[in-house]
């Protein structure tokens, strides 16, 4: 219960995309480069309006590729930077998203998922870019992606996306969908002074001594900003700790592995999930993003009907927490995975279940959202 003398956090009716902009600003975003695409455009429009009000800068670039590139460039000057897009634009961003991952340059990329493939069904909701978020750019690397399932959470995850990005020096994908992006809900706006804001670390060693790609104990390097006097080098070529290209097999091997291990080694800090009613459950519903709303309702309805059903809602979708998911589904009769694609995350759950728990995908790709009744029907099908 809230203390009577404490003023309640102000609540504001906001659209999901609007909440992302406000969250990003609260996290310290001061640069945005983007390109118009529905259903993410409001993020660009609001950034154009709000950023100069707080001394930040906005630019509408000539294409999606350029906006991703500009965000990486902007971030290298030490400014927190973001871009937003949807499926077709997300495909185009993959080139420089891979560059940012490999160059270990913090930034936030919002993907408000719409129905694909290709131009698809503009602009119906979908969750078809789950695997693209994980594997869309070439080569091996790790990635952080977060899935909000309410407007309030979109606000909070925008802040968290920046924090994780700064802490681990990697782009963070805010992998939302049209349901959340265009929905309006009340958001509790915390007092900015109460927010935990993480800023990227700065070198303590002088220029000439500091190595911009030498990892710390967590596996994360510390880079200066352009203009700091360190005169360092950034490249998309595989590089050694000094930032310069190398083909030394030993150095290459550890450089590539670290792009994944710096995230998996810190999984407990990066990972978040909402888990409830799973302890006594026979069935677990594994759902994320906009679809988790219908799943939560379906679980409630099933419980009311006397069925023992729980919900596992990953908030951090990548990296996937094998151990945690295994713990939640072990010994259960079935795991139901409703999603607006043809079973992209169901395959991950199946991989973890490894044949010990039945995994039932509930898929929908007709441009409409999954209803609680459809998920409930799948639950009833097991019982």
């Amino acid at each position, binding site marked *: 219960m809230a203390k009577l003398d404490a003023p309640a956090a102000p609540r504001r009716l906001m659209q999901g995309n609007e909440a992302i902009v406000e969250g990003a600003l609260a996290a310290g975003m*001061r*640069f945005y*480069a983007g390109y118009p695409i529905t259903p993410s455009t409001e993020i660009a429009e609001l950034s154009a*309006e*709000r*950023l*100069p*009000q707080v*001394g930040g*800068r906005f*630019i509408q*670039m*000539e*294409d999606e*590729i*350029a*906006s991703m*590139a*500009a*965000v*990486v*460039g*902007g*971030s*290298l*000057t*030490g*400014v927190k*930077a973001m871009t937003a897009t949807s499926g077709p634009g997300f495909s185009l961003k993959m*080139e*420089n998203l891979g*560059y940012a991952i490999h160059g270990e340059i913090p930034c936030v990329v919002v993907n408000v998922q719409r129905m694909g493939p290709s131009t698809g069904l503009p602009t119906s909701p979908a969750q078809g870019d789950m695997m693209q978020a994980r594997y869309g750019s070439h080569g091996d690397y790790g990635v952080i992606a977060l899935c909000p399932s309410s407007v309030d959470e979109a606000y909070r995850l925008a802040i968290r996306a920046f924090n994780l990005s700064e802490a681990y020096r990697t782009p963070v994908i805010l992998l939302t969908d049209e349901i959340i992006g265009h929905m309006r809900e009340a958001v509790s706006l915390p007092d900015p002074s109460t927010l935990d804001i993480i800023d990227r670390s700065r070198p303590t060693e002088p220029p000439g001594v500091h190595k911009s790609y030498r990892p710390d104990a967590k596996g994360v390097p510390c880079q200066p900003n*352009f*203009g*700091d*006097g*360190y*005169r*360092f*080098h*950034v*490249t*998309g*070529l595989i590089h050694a700790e000094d930032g*310069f*290209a190398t083909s030394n097999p030993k150095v290459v091997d550890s450089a590539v592995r670290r792009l994944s291990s710096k995230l998996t080694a810190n999984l407990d800090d990066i990972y978040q999930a909402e888990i409830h009613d799973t302890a006594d459950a026979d069935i677990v519903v594994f759902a994320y993003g906009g679809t988790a709303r219908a799943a939560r309702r379906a679980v409630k309805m099933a419980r009311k009907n006397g069925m023992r059903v729980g919900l596992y809602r990953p908030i951090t979708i990548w990296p996937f927490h094998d151990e945690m998911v295994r713990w939640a589904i072990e010994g259960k009769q079935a795991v139901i995975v409703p999603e607006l694609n043809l079973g992209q995350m169901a395959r991950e759950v199946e991989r973890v279940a490894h044949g010990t728990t039945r995994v039932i995908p509930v898929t929908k790709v007709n441009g409409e959202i999954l209803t609680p009744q459809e998920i409930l029907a799948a639950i009833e099908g097991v019982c």
Partner: protein
Amino acid sequence: MALANKVNVKRYLRREKLPHIWCPGCGHGIVLSALVRAIATVGLDQNKTVIVSGIGCSSRASGYMDFDTIHTTHGRALAFATGIKMANPELNVIVLTGDGDAAAIGGNHLIHAARRNIGITCICLNNNIYGMTSGQYSPTTPECALATTAPYGNIDPSFDLCKLVTAAGASYVARGTAMQARLLEKLMVKALQNDGFSFVEAVDQCPTYFGRKNKQGDAYNMMKLQQERSVPVSKAKSMELPDLAGKLVVGEIHSAPRQEYTKAYDTVLLKAHREG
């Protein structure tokens, strides 16, 4: 214009990264030297200057230069540079790119950077060929020239990059050649001094792929050809169009200062502050 006579070029280079990867006779070293001298003449702060390059032979130059440097993705150097300049307008931003990098895969970024007149100096090292991938035709390969992907002769008309960026809105446009290194240096000085988008096309030679394939001889012959083809801007003005075919108009092609992009954004900041 007084050019610095005794420039300690070494001061601006990461000497431990040398020797460079460029072939014997390649013109890129001459262009790089001219740029470094121009930077010295203008007196740019080494700690406040960012060198941005794309992908290709010429784009390897960033690694040899002792500044904040970024070797980006193919064609995207100007887009990265735009982000750097926008996020911190106090930085001097110089882009090094090649003909394939700037005019083919990066063509869209080139015209839009010019249109915005953003404060970036773009040096395009134009050797009329994709060198790093071993000799495919580029948007500046002359018609009828041979390339590994044009074994029967190139049918693509070639771009006049200076005309392209002038039309797109660049406020300073110039062309020089590796043969006339001092002229190139002078043009680069003016480009660096211009507050807006400056474009310098540095025509140079690729003896390994373009020269060999097109029987132009060694670097010496190719550079002699650059000299023979060169026509100063002042002389070109009185020449008829057919007489200019195959010629390289060198010198200051276009200079029309206008408001620089990040300074225009300062007006946005002011308005937002007043109204917000």
